[in-house]
């Protein structure tokens, strides 16, 4: 905060939450990438004749893409509904600060 006083203005109080939400988005994206990579290449690097199947699909694809898609869509929904906060987007006045 000292830094901001020096610059002579008060930082928009909504940004703290905005930054948090952006970081969550990045975090989820990276987890998504790891899941996709580990299952895709972890199970898919065997010789194709040794593949196991689930619902007709090769296990690597099923885990990486199907389970991954369902899991990360669900996580995105949870992230948004639990951790994203509603806030006004228009210009705000100082008095509004308490309402955020």
């Amino acid at each position, binding site marked *: 905060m000292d830094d901001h006083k020096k*610059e*002579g*203005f*008060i*930082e*928009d*109080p*909504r*940004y703290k*939450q*905005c*930054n948090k*939400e*952006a970081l*969550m*988005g*990045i975090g*989820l*994206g990276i987890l*998504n*990438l790891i899941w*996709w*990579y580990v299952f*895709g*290449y972890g199970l*898919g*690097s065997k010789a*194709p*004749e040794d*593949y196991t*199947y689930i*619902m*007709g*699909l*090769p296990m*690597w*694809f099923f885990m*990486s*893409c*199907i389970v*991954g*898609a369902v899991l*990360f*869509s669900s996580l*995105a*929904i949870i*992230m*948004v*509904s639990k951790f*994203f906060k*509603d*806030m*006004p*987007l*228009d*210009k*705000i*006045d*100082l008095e509004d*600060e308490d309402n955020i």
Partner: protein
Amino acid sequence: MTNIHWNVLVPLILYFLGVFLIGFYSMRFVSSAQKDEGHNGFLSEYLAGGRDLGGFVLAMTLVTTYLSAGSFIGGPGAAYTFGMAWVFLAMTQMPTGYFTLAVLGKKFAIVARKINAVTITDFIRERYKNDALVILCSLSIIAFFIAAMGAQWIGAARLIEGSVGIPYKVALIFFAITVLIYTTIGGFRAVALTDTLQGVIMTIGTIALFIATIHAGGGVSNIIQKMYEINPGLITPYSIKEGFATKAWVTSFWILVGFAVVGLPSVGMRAMSYKDSKSLKQGIIYGTVVSIVLILGMHLIGAFGIVVVPGIESGDLVIPTITTKLFPAWIAGVILAGPLAAVMSTVDSQLLIVVGAIVNDLYANYMNPSIKKDGRKTAKISFASTLIVGVLVFMTAFNPPPIMVWLNLYANAGLISTFLWPIILGLYWKRANAPGAFASIVTGVGTYVLFSKVWPRPLGMHTIGMPLILSLIAFVIVSVSTKKPSKEIIKNFWGI
């Protein structure tokens, strides 16, 4: 003109009529905004839909804008040739639905309202206060997008040609007139609403086609086993050719089509035009679910196509071929409206971005600043430039000049390397300044063009990987070693 498939044409015409209706509906908003004096009334309506998008519309317009002809024609075509590895690769687009909106998120929307921005270049101008940078960005938008649109229009016309049986040039005119009219009269609101209609059609079409394909192939198990018999590589993540779908290359698509999409102006513009934070939440939820259904569905259809319709010479024809084979003609017409919708929804947004760059970023800022106060005049100029750009693109698609072909090659990557870091760092890093932005654009675009000639897979990655890393480094080093941005800018962006 004797081989016209009327059964396919009639549903397509009905669909085009629906699109026109939306255009006329949106025209009411545009014409009332024309009478608005000052406050950017007209441009805010025409270029950002009056910042009025609800969650569902936001999701649909975002998803359909970045899923272009590539995802509906080229993508399934590649999956047809390269098998499950290409579906696996396509899934790198999975985070786009939540990632772009979460990262640009509310902050971008708040900032856009603070500085009254209706285009990405508005944001760049206010953040960096540098005319040369603004002009560079606007010109890059105009050149790259006109080239990119040309390619999309060619795809659309080929699709109509193939499915309806009318000559290419007639198809192109048919398509061009439709897009031009609803975009010109209705602006962003028309674009977002038609995107929604198109998104719904794409989703229904994808699901129907997916079910029919599995049915025709005798079940998933059977299809996968047959793919294995054709070539075991078809069911591995490494594809059929050694050294083609390598780990590093496939994984680097996460950068190109997953994360860096944030840097596309047509995507970023959507992140400034939604109504409230609730719309953003819903936008993320719908956007993620719809994009997964579309991406997974379309690419699996393409991959399974090798069993259902073997022996197609060009992968690009796999979707039209499957559709006309599996469905009665009139349903095929409805389903083929899906990929056509994908093209249209990408093109209309690009068209509007180019118009924004011309009218808002260049004309209103540098040539005639008083114009912003005059809604009627701005409207006239916007309509006129929409038409002119449309005609230019039409000519490009009719007979592409060599420079356009060349520009198109670099279009997406060029836009991403131009805008990604100036947007992200401008939004989240106070120290980011104009020289830094310049350095990153020059480094990004320059190394991309260079690498695609001499080192197309740097360290095994897709060409875009390294240039983005290098341009980030250039941005940071140059920013830190030059003057801080002025207090006024920081206050404007970060203050209340």
